[in-house]
């Protein structure tokens, strides 16, 4: 079990040991870094490729279709066929576009998506870089995606692109705030920003003492996950690329591999955000019996399934609805949630559980009532007839 748990760690160690035999000593750390980077650079695109297939399969099944099943058994080679198609397509740049930025944007958008993989703890001792500010690093890097999206929108010189870019900027800035605030209770509880330490803090009770099992953790998880879905522009928050309204939003003027890079960034973001949600709330790689990385990937893919489930079910928000949800509901609720977390840690258990559930329920109810739009009563004219 232990060997299976540490199989990837021992694999890397084995390669390093083998290389130490014929390479000079100073290359050791460099090789270690290169192996980590190589693993991530392989994992990211492969994950993206198979997420496209998974999405098409799952959404298809939800819509009573079969989904791709022609290329290989169960369509497993479909992503490769799509990749070949994307690479051989013509790369079209609009005549009056800013050529440099038009080229730069798809490259810029993939970079943060790959960079954040560095702090995701894929398993026990399987964090590429255990930064002491891991969560902060993740949130900071992933929020730079906005810049790349707006660059793409601006460089395309297209009204629809620009509209999409504006929407993306508005949406990302709005959802960044409740997202960060909903992560604060976890940082309070684990007293660390390091993803590794956060996972370690959820290790009690045979690795099942996850933060989601507390009232504040549950609320924070829901807020964080909704904001995460909005952050990576997935349905029902896919306003920046709303087909029915603004063609394809910020990637209207992109084709071929550049377009594929946008998709790659989107899917890798949804993977890393699910990974971070798993790390913060679902105990990361903690769990009984199975190897740690199986737990991590299982939980992450469960969250990704929920994202696909949203995609298969929910229609797109209107812009004002999306803004209202972020600013009028999620933001105040996450602020209340931070206070409730403090309450939880300074009060004795029975009162803490009941009290925090009561406060959260009450504040949630009040916020929902306040958010209800005013519907005037239907007027009846007494003497009309």
């Amino acid at each position, binding site marked *: 079990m232990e060997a299976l748990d540490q199989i990837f760690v021992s694999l890397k160690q084995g390669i390093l040991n083998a290389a130490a035999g014929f390479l000079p000593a100073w290359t050791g750390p460099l090789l270690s870094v290169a192996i980590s980077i190589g693993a991530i650079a392989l994992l990211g695109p492969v994950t993206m490729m198979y997420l496209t297939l998974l999405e098409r399969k*799952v959404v298809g*099944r*939800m*819509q*009573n279709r*079969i989904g791709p099943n022609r290329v290989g058994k169960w369509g497993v080679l479909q992503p490769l066929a799509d990749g070949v198609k994307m690479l051989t397509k013509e790369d079209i740049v609009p005549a009056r576009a800013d050529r440099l930025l038009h080229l730069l944007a798809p490259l810029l958008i993939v970079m943060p998506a790959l960079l954040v993989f560095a702090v995701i703890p894929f398993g026990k001792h399987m964090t590429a870089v255990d930064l002491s500010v891991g969560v902060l690093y993740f949130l900071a890097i992933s929020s730079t995606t906005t810049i790349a999206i707006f660059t793409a929108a601006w460089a395309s010189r297209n009204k629809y692109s620009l509209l999409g870019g504006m929407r993306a900027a508005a949406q990302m800035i709005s959802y960044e705030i409740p997202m960060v605030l909903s992560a604060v209770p976890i940082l309070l509880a684990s007293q660390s920003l390091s993803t590794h330490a956060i996972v370690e803090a959820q290790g009690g009770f045979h690795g099942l003492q996850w933060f989601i099992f507390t009232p504040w953790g549950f609320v924070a998880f829901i807020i964080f996950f909704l904001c995460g879905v909005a952050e990576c522009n997935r349905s029902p928050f896919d306003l920046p690329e709303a087909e029915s309204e603004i063609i394809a939003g910020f990637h209207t003027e992109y084709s071929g591999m550049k377009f594929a890079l946008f998709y790659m960034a989107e899917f890798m973001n949804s993977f890393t955000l699910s990974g971070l949600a798993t790390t913060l709330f679902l105990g990361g790689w903690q769990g009984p019996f199975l190897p740690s990385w199986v737990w991590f990937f299982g939980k992450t893919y469960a969250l990704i399934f929920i994202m696909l*489930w949203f995609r*298969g079910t*929910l229609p797109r928000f209107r812009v004002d609805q999306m803004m209202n949800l972020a600013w009028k509901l999620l933001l105040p609720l996450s602020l209340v949630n931070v206070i409730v977390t403090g309450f939880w840690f300074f009060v004795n258990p029975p009162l803490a559980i009941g009290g925090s559930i009561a406060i959260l329920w009450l504040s949630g109810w009040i916020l*929902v009532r306040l958010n209800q739009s005013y519907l005037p009563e239907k007027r009846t004219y007494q003497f009309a007839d």
Partner: protein
Amino acid sequence: MMYFGEGVVKGMMVTLKAFVASYFKGPEDGGLFTVEYPEQRLPEKENFRNFPFLIYDNTPDNLRCVACDICAKECPPKCIYIVREFDKDNKPLKRPAVFNIDHTVCMNCGICEEACPFDAIYMDHNFEIASAERNENLLFRKDKLLKSNEYFHKIRPTDATAIDERRAAAEAKKKAAEAAAAQKAAAAQAAPKPAAPGTTTPPAAEPPKTV
């Protein structure tokens, strides 16, 4: 009263049910009803008709078509092209030398089938004619159009049986008429002074010219 988010949960349950049913249930219980075409097929309907074919009895030489050109004249998009066959003495034969149907032009109306007085041309079930080349592969010549009566029985048994019965009845009637005529002729020969035009009918009046 609806709780906040109740509608979303209801909708999510609908899609989840469809997702689970797609793996574990049959098409009757809400599962997948897709027929994966090249491997799986729906049973062909007997009344399905597209693209005409020429019918022959027993051997391909014995085709029913007499090259009367009615179908070619009736065909609305004019996709049928017929050339009559002549023998060595340049006498016209009751069979086509060339019979082409251009499937790129044919619109599957079935008028040729209705117009044919010789039960020679019928609508087929052949819908898989897709081809990468349209001139040679979609112009169906006589050898490609000829199909046996057994094939016709296989694809449209009800129609084929009715037509065969009708043809058999007509054949029997013709035979009976011939027999009666022969008998009459024999009787006339036996009797003195036979009527001159009794056995052979006078040449039919000129058929109305179709323009």
